[in-house]
């Protein structure tokens, strides 16, 4: 699979990025129907909001991290707040809907229920962080990019398929980068080295 790699691009030029290798896969994905449950407005708002309100809003943390492709397939979902599975599916569906059709010229921040989703698109993948409404959006944007760079470094030229087949490693990298909804390590080198040590133990 490494023959058809597509590089994730630097965030400042990713819009012009050549998608050829990903395009082939995307067409194949398209034939599969993305199962997106539809929810009524009332059901959507009830439990989730209640749950979130029980958190003190002054406590800032990342609530969840999502990695989705354009078709809405979840490639990584990490929740730092407890949610029911059904709620998680709703959240994933809604976040995808919010970000997928947004004009690339618009801000990378969308309000989501009582929170804010900071997202960034790399080729066909959307990286979304849900954070507190008053938190520093620009910092999280930088955070997403650092994560992508780490992935890129680890998989050397990462593409979506790497993330699919090595999803458990992606989770492990994320656990070295963010823990309990807080940033844990800001050095790409440190994380890659740590991953190397852990791989050796396998």
């Amino acid at each position, binding site marked *: 699979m490494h023959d058809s790699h597509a590089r994730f691009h630097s965030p400042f030029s990713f819009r012009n990025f050549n998608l050829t290798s990903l395009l082939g896969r995307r067409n194949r994905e398209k034939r*599969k129907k993305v199962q997106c449950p539809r929810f009524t407005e009332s059901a959507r708002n009830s439990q989730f909001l209640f749950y979130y309100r029980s958190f003190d809003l002054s406590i800032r943390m990342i609530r969840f991290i999502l990695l989705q492709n354009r078709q809405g397939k979840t490639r990584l979902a990490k929740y730092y707040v407890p949610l029911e599975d059904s709620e998680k599916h709703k959240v994933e569906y809604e976040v995808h809907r919010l970000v997928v059709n947004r004009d690339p010229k*618009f801000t990378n921040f969308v309000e989501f229920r009582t929170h804010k989703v900071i997202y960034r698109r790399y080729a066909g993948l959307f990286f979304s962080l849900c954070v507190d409404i008053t938190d520093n959006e620009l910092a999280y944007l930088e955070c997403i990019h650092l994560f992508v760079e780490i992935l890129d470094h680890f998989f050397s030229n990462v593409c979506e398929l790497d993330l*699919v087949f090595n999803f458990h490693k992606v989770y492990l990298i994320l656990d070295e980068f963010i*823990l309990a909804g807080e940033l*844990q390590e*800001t050095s790409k080198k440190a994380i890659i080295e740590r991953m190397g040590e852990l791989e050796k133990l396998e």
Partner: protein
Amino acid sequence: MNPFSSGTRLRDMIRAIRACKTAAEERAVVRKECAAIRAAINENDQDYRHRNLAKLMFIHMLGYPTHFGQMECLKLIASAGFPEKRIGYLGLMLLLDERQEVLMLVTNSLKQDLNHSNQYIVGLALCALGNICSAEMARDLAPEVERLLQFRDPNIRKKAALCSIRIVKKVPDLAENFINPAATLLREKHHGVLITGIQLCTDLCKVSPEALEYFRKKCTEGLVRTLKDVVNSPYAPEYDIAGITDPFLHIRLLKILRILGQGDADASDTMNDILAQVATKTESNKNAGNAILYECVETIMSIEDNGGLRVLAINILGRFLSNRDNNIRYVALNMLMKAITVDAQAVQRHRATILECVKDSDASIRKRALELVYLLVNESNVRPLTKDLIEYLEVSDQEFKGDLTAKICSIVEKFSPEKIWYIDQMLKVLTEAGNFVKDEVWHALIVVISNASDLHGYTVRALYRAFQTSAEQETLVRVAVWCIGEYGDMLVNNVGVLDIEDPIKTVTESNAVDVVEIAIKRHASDLTTKAMALIALVKLSSRFPSCSERIKDIIMHYKGSLVLELQQRSLEFNSIIEKHQNIRSTLVERMPVLDEATFSGRRAGSLPATVSTSNGASLNLPNGVAKHSAAPLVDLLDLSDDAPAPGSSGSDFLHDLLGVDLAPASTQPGISQAPKSGTDVLLDLLSIGTTNPVQSNSSALDILSPGQDNQKPIAALDVLSSPLASAQANSSVGASSMIDLLDGFAPSPLKHEDNGQVYPSIVAFESSNLRITFNFSKPPGNAQTTLIQATFKNLSSNAFTDFVFQAAVPKFLQLHLDPASRNTLPASDNGSVTQSLRVTNSQHGKKALVMRIRIAYKLNNKDMLEEGQINNFPQDL
């Protein structure tokens, strides 16, 4: 080995799932895999446990249920090897969360792993604890985590620090144990440990005032020094992002300084210099630099006052505002919103730029900017700002118009320097986006117009002009129609022309009526508009005698309207025009000036209330309003003191005054008898509505007649119907023969003697040919039994022959019929037939009588059959 679990590797499974062409195929593959995994779980398969769990995690990510794998996680965690534990903890974090009871079982494994000699295993346990720790686990494992804060390996220290945050959030009581170890973390050189240590201190400050006090005293200077070092550090490739060394650490440091400086002048003083340095020296051409500046601005705004720094901060935001990057402008607007409470003057300087952002193509920026503009408006700048916003309203997106209109209206209302300006601006808004204006806004406008007596002429002329160009804006049409109805004469006679006003070409009376006619005939007009137009028309009919005939035609056009409200109104108004010329002019006089204070008070009290137009009966305008003593009937129109009703809202206010009572047509007809709105009272007074009670009565009967089981309503109905029925019976009795008289009265004294109870006789059945009257009596000592004397009377001019009366009753009744007095019934006044019935009611006192009847007879040798149901028996039979 089990043939199922031998199966595929994880990679093969993913490949198989990806190869599926339809969702059904995918489900089939997943089902097969899940079955294999379940089988393996049942067999307690050791070798492939972690592979199976990895598969389950992938399946879980696809959205399939995987709860059956939860116990496998625990088993893997309890196993000895690192790879097994690693997958086990990963599964634990993905498949479970803090609310599951199963989690309690893992506490012990976690405790062991936290004390494990292998630091990588300790790391795994800390990671899992940080992500899914519950309050109980926090209490149990806090000592271990506290100890690990001093572990030799930095990777463990930073994980332990973040774990501590989670523990402190779950159990704030534990905070004091962590204060000292956290403070030592602040002296770390390792960035990862430092950043997590700072984060831990920040969170400790939030949950514990003692911690805040401690860090403020002991650590402020140290943190300032750390920030200074980071800012001035040479290029460090490991942490470098866009030429800045570790922007994340910058941001964390600025954040904790903000918390320490807030409300403490000394601490704020300590950090002034470094904040100034960060604000001036940071590169702002990359996102990372802007993120730091943004955080720095927030810190400057939050700590104790330092004028110079604040100017610096606002200037940074000003630069942000003119940035080409939408993200930067967005955060600038966000921050300016906070800054406005600190230094409104400084924010005002960027008004022009902010106003530009209202016109941005990105909805989130527009929304922020609009909110900010709204906060920026004051008495001195309201005119230019409103002008700009209204100009923009003309070109803005449809979906943004709603927000924009609401904000403009609110600004105009709040800050208008004079009435004429208010009216001008509101008319502009109505012309541009009348369809987006909320009800309370145009209600308020009408109240203001009504109060500005010197502007009536001006307003009505302006509205007339506006209507010519923007007749499709619903609320504009409503206000125009109302004003023309009230002040139409001023429009025609050009009363009260102001100097500034454009000369208007002469408007004739018929032009004014044209406007109202267009409004009422426009297909898109809704019920409120049409109802208001009808009222305007009736008012104009008195003001413009020359158009009276035309107006009458328009009003009459609605007598056949399917909407009950319009139909009723049209009929009422028509009779006012036709039959009550003498009082019409007083009736349709100008509305008394609306009381602004009452209106605004009511609005304030009922802002969240929804506009409920259907409850109809809400009238409680206090009579503080100046009234024309010459117009007593006008007073009735705003009928207030005697009908206070709860739940009236501001939006009803005007409806009440106008008598626009939008009761939906489906309201039960019986209800219309109750005087509930001004018009109805008026109607009663004018005795136009005499047909009403009868109609509603009979229709109520219609509603109730089918179905024998609805006994309750029948009882209620008797109250309504029996007096009426007996009155009719009496009148007919009075006019007809002796027998009737006897029948009608003879039993009464008898009954009186029997049990002291008199039952009125009823007309049980009436058709064009036949009337049946029932008289009731009770045999002494038997309450259940009723004796009924039925009297049949022929209303046609020919005799009935072969007359047979049959009756049927439901099961709880028993009926005995005596033979009729004879079987021929002579024509009209020549006598009647009587027949006795005995009914026994087994549910006496619970259910009322009910009976179905059939009458067969020959009229001119033709068989006739009539049927009916009697529901109007007196109660207690």
